[in-house]
């Protein structure tokens, strides 16, 4: 039995992993092709706007350094093998390797997106369970309208209003940044990080809780009419026990899948929200890069974010059998 199960898991692994590898390859190829396809001079795009003012031999030397004088296929090979070793190029604005820059900023974005994801999932599912147990009543219908409206508001606008109200007017929270410079140790620092995190994370939660709510509601509705819920009720179990022990586990599968799938849109929303709060994450870095026309940094940021999203999706795919016994067998 165990052997067969392991073999099945291996087969699942063998089917899924290449698909994701392929997506990463497409992403890398798109990254390679973009500066070479886009209007404008690739020399400028890869070396910076000021490149044309340099003396000709310097340009040639720089080009040879980056490998732009080679045939396209050789360039592609060099690009891919560099990428495999974690080389994302060189940011001419910061005069540092793109990978180092990203490594500094990535933890902040992961903290922000991770917090928002966990909180919005718990909140969305709890609200949905509440709504389903009172379904059809006026408040249930109203909640659909309210959450659709919330889903329709631009996240950064919600963030701005939170910042204006709780930051500028009430002065409860700092107006920008992800940590203060003067608090550097232990508990004080952790608290400081938390205070800076709260508003941006709340923004992302507000912007994404609607989707979780609507999905969890739909999937709970599918479950509550099942026979075993009726049986549970006939046994005289309390409604809360039915909801938590019987309905939620069965409904959790599509919810879990959608949570993992939403990492992408959350990470995207975080980019803009980070700018509102001047949060020191990858998003702020990318937007700065966009204005400095620092293309290697921009593309490196995109590539790393894509990698993370693909990784999370793959994780979800591989965890799926553990959540769903029907697939495991």
């Amino acid at each position, binding site marked *: 039995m165990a052997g067969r199960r392991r073999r099945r898991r291996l087969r699942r692994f063998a089917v899924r992993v290449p*698909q994701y590898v*392929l*997506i990463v390859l*497409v*992403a890398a190829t*798109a990254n390679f092709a*973009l*500066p070479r396809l*886009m*209007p*404008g001079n690739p020399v400028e*795009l890869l070396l910076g706007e000021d490149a044309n003012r340099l003396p000709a031999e310097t340009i040639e030397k720089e080009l040879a350094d980056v490998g732009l004088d080679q045939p396209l296929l050789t360039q592609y090979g060099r690009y891919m093998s560099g990428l495999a070793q974690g080389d994302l190029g060189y940011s001419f604005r910061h005069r540092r390797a793109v990978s180092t820059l990203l490594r500094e900023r990535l933890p902040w974005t992961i903290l922000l997106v991770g917090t928002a994801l966990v909180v919005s999932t718990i909140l969305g599912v709890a609200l949905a369970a509440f709504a389903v147990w009172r*379904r*059809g009543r006026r408040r249930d*219908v109203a909640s*659909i*309208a309210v959450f*659709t*409206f919330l*889903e*329709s*508001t*631009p996240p*950064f*606008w919600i963030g*701005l*209003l939170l*910042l*204006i109200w709780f930051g*500028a007017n009430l002065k409860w929270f700092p107006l920008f940044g992800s940590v203060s410079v003067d608090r550097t140790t232990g508990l004080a620092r952790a608290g400081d990080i938390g205070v800076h995190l709260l508003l941006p994370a709340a923004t992302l939660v507000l912007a994404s809780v609607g989707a979780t709510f609507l999905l969890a509601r739909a999937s709970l509705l599918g479950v509550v009419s099942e026979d075993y819920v009726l049986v549970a009720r006939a046994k005289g179990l309390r409604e809360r026990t039915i909801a938590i022990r019987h309905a939620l586990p069965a409904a959790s599968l599509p919810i879990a899948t959608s949570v993992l799938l939403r990492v*992408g*849109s959350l*990470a*995207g*929303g975080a*980019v*803009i929200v980070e*700018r*509102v709060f001047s949060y020191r994450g990858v*998003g702020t870095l*990318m*937007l700065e*890069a*966009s*204005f400095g*026309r620092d*293309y290697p940094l*921009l*593309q490196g*940021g*995109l590539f790393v*974010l*894509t990698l993370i*999203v*693909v990784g999370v*999706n793959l994780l979800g795919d591989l965890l799926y059998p553990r959540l769903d016994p029907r697939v495991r067998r």
Partner: protein
Amino acid sequence: MSRPRRLRRATRTLTILGGVTLAVFGVLALFGSALAPFDAGERAGRPFLEPSRDHLLGTDDIGHDILSELIGGARVSLLIGLAAAAIAVVGGGLLGAVAGYRRGAVDAVLMRTVDYALVVPTIPLLIVLASYLERGMRSQILVVAVLLWAEPARIVRSQVLSLRERTHVLAARTFGAGAPYLIRRHVVPAVAPLLIAQFVRVVSVAILFEVALSFVGLGDPVRRSWGSMIQFATDRGAFLTGAWKWWIVPPGLCVAAVVCSFAFVGLGLEERFDRRLARGAQG
């Protein structure tokens, strides 16, 4: 009253509400220049005026009337959203149809691209693409469309794949029907309702993308959209004074109202098509 009936009635109310809101904004977008109290580019008063009878939403840092800017923004945001969605749905639909019809290598390449487009974090990609292009309305439309074609393409492809095996299509092919006839007679009618529902969904996303892009300063530098209004207001420190109440809140509310209305209309459309599809399957 039973639950489904109440839900259906609520859906209808929401759909009508959405339709009316969209009609109002449509009129503003079409005839805004005649309806607005001032020209959006005109210095209508002193800068930083508070709301008054002359300027219902005050004036901005140059003295433009904010209400007139808001009305002008309706045209820009709606135009970009509609145009980008149209390109994405029609273009994506065509690609999907070709992939489903041709199958083989074409299909494989297209579908791997779709996989990528569905996974890639959209807003970062949006920023990267927009940074390469000239700032302007046309490139904004293009970039947003490029991000949204994948879902329609996938939907149409799976429809075409299933259609080509259905008996009535096989029968038509046996009688020698060519691709143009099959597409006109069988593919378009089957796919159209799906695409219309898709279009409504895509428009809302497109408008949100446009607003986000303009907010981070990657929009059209000349035409003021709702997103760039919020950006300018933030850059001019509107939240340190009280000006945010009439400078930042209204454009955001407009975006939310329009996007939400599209969602409500989509809800109604989906239900109608669903019922028709269900009946079609029975008969």
